């Protein structure tokens, strides 16, 4: 991404490392995104994504490495925090919203502007503007404790964007909302991103949020970036087994196979030629849910599994079945005539979508 013109990167992270005593949260991380991007850091809890965000915000110092905003180094492991939050021109939306409980909605939005030294008229105009942008003008004189969770969320966003930061940081901002509000706020955040044009970094463990909102996604695991790129590219061509199974709804199927002669076998079922595994004795074959079917067709490998459930999904049916400890998902046209516990036959596509080494890296 944009590596050819590093000066213009809105955010450039190089060789970043963060340890807490004995524990290494982030061993060595590098990333960069161009201005105006919407970068989503996604991964399971404890993967280091919030730690990374706090370092971007300037709330924690990196142990080693550098962070640069628009070509200016703001944090470095050698020099600590070089730029305090004011100089960073970044805003952070907290998971807890962190609304100051003793100030009204308008007061919460006003305070950062006051700190930034805006004059009264400009502040009043800006408050009215962001209140309108988020559709909360009627709440301006309420206290945080008097409004609902979704409204608090909007106030938190309004407060953060009011001083017009060049970089917006979000720490799992939607995780405290119910499902319906979450979808609503997702659209709202994208609208605000378009309206402000601020480069945004968004931390979440929800892969749907990542896929729908991002221009760039970094999938993180154990403090490392497993894969970085546009969401479509990650979906189409996962680089590791972790990415392949973490992204996508329903999750794809990862079948462990063993070489026998010149074929790859899964529990005795011949799936593909050994050449796919590039000479390895063991590998994972990756089939997307839409490559698995309940209809048995000639020439396609068939796996026996125990039916567990079927859920309607956008006009089709998502079937889940298990074999051993492995869960398999398939997207099919019609609801199978089976009850939980019944044996069903699942046929796989002629060739897998991807082949991964046992270590997790993609082979083919």
């Amino acid at each position, binding site marked *: 991404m944009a590596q050819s013109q590093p000066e213009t990167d809105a955010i450039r992270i190089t060789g970043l490392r963060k340890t807490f005593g004995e524990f290494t949260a982030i061993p060595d991380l590098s990333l960069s995104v161009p201005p105006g991007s919407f970068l989503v850091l996604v991964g399971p809890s404890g993967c280091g994504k919030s730690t990374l965000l706090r370092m971007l915000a300037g709330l924690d110092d990196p142990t080693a490495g550098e962070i640069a905003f628009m070509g200016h180094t703001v944090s470095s492991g050698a020099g600590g925090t070089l730029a305090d939050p004011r100089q960073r021109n970044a805003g952070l939306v907290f998971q*807890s919203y962190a*609304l100051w409980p003793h100030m009204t909605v308008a007061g919460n939005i006003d305070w*950062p502007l006051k700190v930034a030294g805006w004059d009264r008229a400009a502040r009043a105009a800006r408050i009215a503007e962001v209140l309108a942008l988020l559709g909360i003008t009627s709440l301006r004189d309420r206290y945080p404790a008097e409004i609902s*969770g979704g409204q608090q969320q909007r106030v938190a966003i309004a407060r953060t964007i009011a001083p017009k930061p060049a970089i917006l940081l979000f720490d799992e901002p939607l995780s405290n909302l119910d499902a319906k509000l979450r979808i609503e706020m997702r659209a709202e955040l994208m609208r605000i991103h378009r309206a402000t044009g601020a480069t945004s970094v968004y931390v979440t463990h929800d892969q749907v949020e990542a896929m729908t909102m991002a221009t760039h996604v970094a999938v993180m695991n154990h403090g490392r970036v497993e894969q970085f790129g546009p969401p479509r590219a990650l979906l189409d061509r996962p680089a590791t087994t972790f990415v392949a199974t973490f992204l996508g709804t329903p999750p794809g199927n990862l079948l462990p196979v063993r070489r026998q002669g010149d074929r790859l076998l899964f529990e005795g079922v011949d799936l593909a030629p050994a050449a796919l595994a590039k000479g390895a004795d063991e590998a994972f074959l990756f089939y997307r849910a839409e490559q698995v079917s309940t209809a048995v067709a000639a020439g396609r490998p068939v796996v026996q599994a125990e039916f567990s459930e079927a859920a309607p999904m956008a006009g089709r049916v998502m079937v889940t079945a298990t074999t051993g400890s492995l869960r398999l998902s398939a997207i099919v046209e019609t609801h199978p005539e089976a009850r939980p516990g019944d044996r069903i036959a699942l046929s796989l596509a002629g060739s897998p979508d991807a082949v991964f080494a046992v270590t997790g890296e993609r082979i083919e």
Partner: protein
Amino acid sequence: MSHATPVPSPSGRRLLSSRQIVPLLMVLIVGVLVVAPLLRILLATLTPAGLTAWGDVLASAMSQNLWWRPLMNTLILGIGVSAGCLLLGGFVAWLVVMTDVPGRRLLGVMHTLPFMIPSFAAALAWGTLFRNSRMGGSSGFFESNGFLIPDWLAWGIVPVLIVLIAHYYSLAFTIISAALSSVGADLVEAAQMTGARRPRIFFGIVLPVVTPALVSAGSLTLAGAVSNFAAPALLGLPVRMQTLSTRLFGMIEIGQAERGFVLALLLIAVSGVFLFLSDRLVSGRRAFVTVTGKGGRTRRFPLGRWRWPLFAVGLGLALLTTVVPVLVLVASSLAPQTGALFSNWTLHFWLGEGGGQIAQGQAGIFRNSVLIEALFNTLKLGLVVALLSMVLGLALAHTITRHKGTILANALSQLAFLPLLIPSIAFAAAYIALFGAPIGPLPSLYGTFALLVIAAAAHNLPFAVQAGRSVLGQISTDLEESARLTGAGPLRRMWAIIFPLAIRGLLAGAILVFVKMVRDLSLVVLLFSATSPVLSMVAYRYAAEGFMQFANAITVLILVICLAASLVAQALQARVQKWKD
């Protein structure tokens, strides 16, 4: 039930009426315990004799001595103590909660202790050290060792201020530090993100969020200082420094009951005015519940090179207000001469036989039959009041929660919290007004153990109801209902679910009431009688007569009992927490 007109199911009707019986009964009980004495004391001052007393106190040649000077002293004490406590308690709270001072946990625990030590213990310790010869009797440690102690440092308003601040600041500390810890790191970090610097974050965010706590800490310490009896009585009375509470005590003791009642009402009014004002000050934005939890994390500011000096200040303060007074009391109870606290130690004041040279031939406290009786009375009083308070508190809390929203429940919770606003010595005066004379066939209860128990239980009601509520809060209806769905009967549910969940909270609450009773003086001082002496009263009598060592020895005994009870409470608390994890 045999109405011709169709009525809702009979059980529905019975439920309705039985639903009202319990709260009505509770209102009746609280009415007798809390409202009746207060009404009675008011009515007692509206009789011809009472009206004369109003005139004497407020508008006569005596009013200067009866009302204005004591009022002045009371106000100086209240405002001075409250200001001192906010500064001291606020400083320590900031140190412990908001900074990276070393030994934060140790400091936090130590600074909650001074409030556990009764104020008369601190006053006695002060006297032991700073007494001068002006009042006759033996002088204190410092003067005996050649330091000249001026009168203002030995007696009167200054030592009372110091002693009360040393006692009450830990209350302010507890309240303020709880509020400060609720200022989550996110709030501070959100302010940091705006680029605000430390002072601006402190004055713009932290201080306003804890303002309600500051106001309530200020008003509680003020109310405490205004109604405190022990410290002004021990350090002020010898130089005729009167406060409203010592005046009121004096009036009742010399039989001028009406004047005493008038002063009690005025004392209630004074402390009520301040509590009302503070309530107005924070009303509207009362408690800033920090929105959405996750507030466990707090942001600690680095102190840099001030870490150790500030730790030393914090530790020194804690030692001066806890260890030093206790040490002085212990040493003094063992040393024949206050000038030499740490030499010639003898157990005479504890165990000695009478008739010797020291202590005018008086025997040690454990040979004094009055003391032994007082010891048992004190334990009995503490236990009975603790039991009665918790039973009442649980019953009231249960009634209030089950009937939530009804007028009766609201009235009940308001009434139950009324004693919180009444200084305990004035509350005792009200009990004298109500039970001092026979009511119909009932004999006068004045001077009986029963009266002391009832008055104490009534004065502890606010605390007991609070404790009852928190106990009930641990037993969510879900828990009981899920047990019910298993088919367990009511008794079994009670035994297997409710009892284990409630017992520890109840015990902890009971122990706190017990400790409060054992070290109480201001309630006991009016209601106590010669036939049922209690320890704190005996200590006060000894001190008033100048037998400091005996007074100190008994105070040490009280401290030991309180400490033992607190340890039990702490052990229980730890077990509760273990199971919460």
